[in-house]
């Protein structure tokens, strides 16, 4: 029953739109439901990156800890968004911390499991790489705008 539900959720998610049903089946085999309480760290910088998450409900902050300073939130992700791309890119380590701001429900996809499937199924690997490239590109654009410090008194 849970597998069916996961399959529907993944198949209907815009990130996986038009993905071959066989590939959806492969994803579902690596998926599970997870829940994070407010304030709970989902992952921390430097840890092994072996998952990514489809956020179903709640808000997650992406944080960085500057030396000798309190962490800074550099991005937030909400319902429907994808958290995490480091699982796909060597050395498979998280670059930032991710923390649940609100009570957060998500589908976790096991990156280790998916990497193995991508190695043996290059078509799936290419599809995922294309889709994650858009996420990485969008976040790179946003980061460059942040670096401009648009609203500072120049």
């Amino acid at each position, binding site marked *: 029953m849970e597998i069916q539900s996961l399959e529907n959720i993944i198949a209907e998610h815009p990130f996986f739109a038009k993905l071959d049903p066989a590939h959806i089946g492969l994803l579902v085999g690596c998926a599970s439901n997870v829940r994070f309480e407010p304030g709970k760290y989902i992952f921390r910088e430097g840890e092994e990156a072996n998952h990514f998450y489809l956020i179903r409900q709640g*808000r997650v*902050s*992406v*944080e960085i800890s500057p030396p000798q300073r*309190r*962490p*800074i*939130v*550099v*991005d*937030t992700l*909400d319902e*429907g*968004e994808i958290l995490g791309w480091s699982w796909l890119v060597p050395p498979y380590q998280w670059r930032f911390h991710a*923390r649940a*701001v*609100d009570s957060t429900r998500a589908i976790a996809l096991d990156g280790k499991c998916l990497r193995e499937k991508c190695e043996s199924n290059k078509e799936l690997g290419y599809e995922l790489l294309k889709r994650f490239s858009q996420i990485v590109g969008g976040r790179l*654009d*946003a980061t460059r*705008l*942040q670096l*401009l*410090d*648009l*609203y*500072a*008194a120049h």
Partner: protein
Amino acid sequence: MRPVPWVVRQVTKETPDTFTLVLDPPKGARGRFTPGQFSMLWVCGVGELPISISGDPTRPESLTYTVRSVGAATQSLVTRQAGQTVGVRGPFGKGWPIEAAKGRDIIVAAGGIGLAPLRPVIYHVLANRSHYGRLTVLYGARNPRDILFRKELAAWAKLPDTQVFSTVDYGGVSWRGHVGVVTTLFKMLRLRPVLTTAMVCGPEIMMRVVARELLARGLSGDQLFLSMERNMKCAIGLCGHCQWGPHFVCKDGPVFPFSQIAPLLDRYEL
């Protein structure tokens, strides 16, 4: 055209460096303006500055300006005391297309102090609610301390057919709101591009990227309006200080349709 002395009724601190001044008119005068217009505000012995009107256009008994203190002239404005005077010329320029936008959904997209020239649009739409479709306010600030009109943003968000999305570029861990540049708010938008007029004000690069996002979502360049800022001096198109390509920003703007100014937007020498 000489400045007319208006009397400071009140100065309110909005953020650490931004203040709102309410000015009362001299006897017999009224503060009529179109949302998006600006005045030239003069402090004797210091100088004159173009400042957008940020108050309610349905209340002409005063004029309201929101000023960010970034130099000597703006500092002298925001440190005026109640009862002191400020010289006022104007209002000047072409404002937001509030008449042409009747019957349409309205997107107000603002960055930083750019919310000030757009606040009169929001007041106008809310005062004439049946004349407009959905109202969506997208607002980006540098950090939570710099969010302008915070209480009003929260109040507007509770109104029917009105959505308010705000974000900050950086937040501390205690901040529970959205973090990310203003363009990251577009993922929350339910846009009806053919029915929508967008009005955008903020740093020029912010307006460019917001325009790019809106056009990518199907909005027409004729229904997308930006408020430009140049060095306005005479404010009536004579001195040429604010010339921008073929336009005088003070007279032909400050609000322009995107389709009219798109070729000028990424030319750094203008």
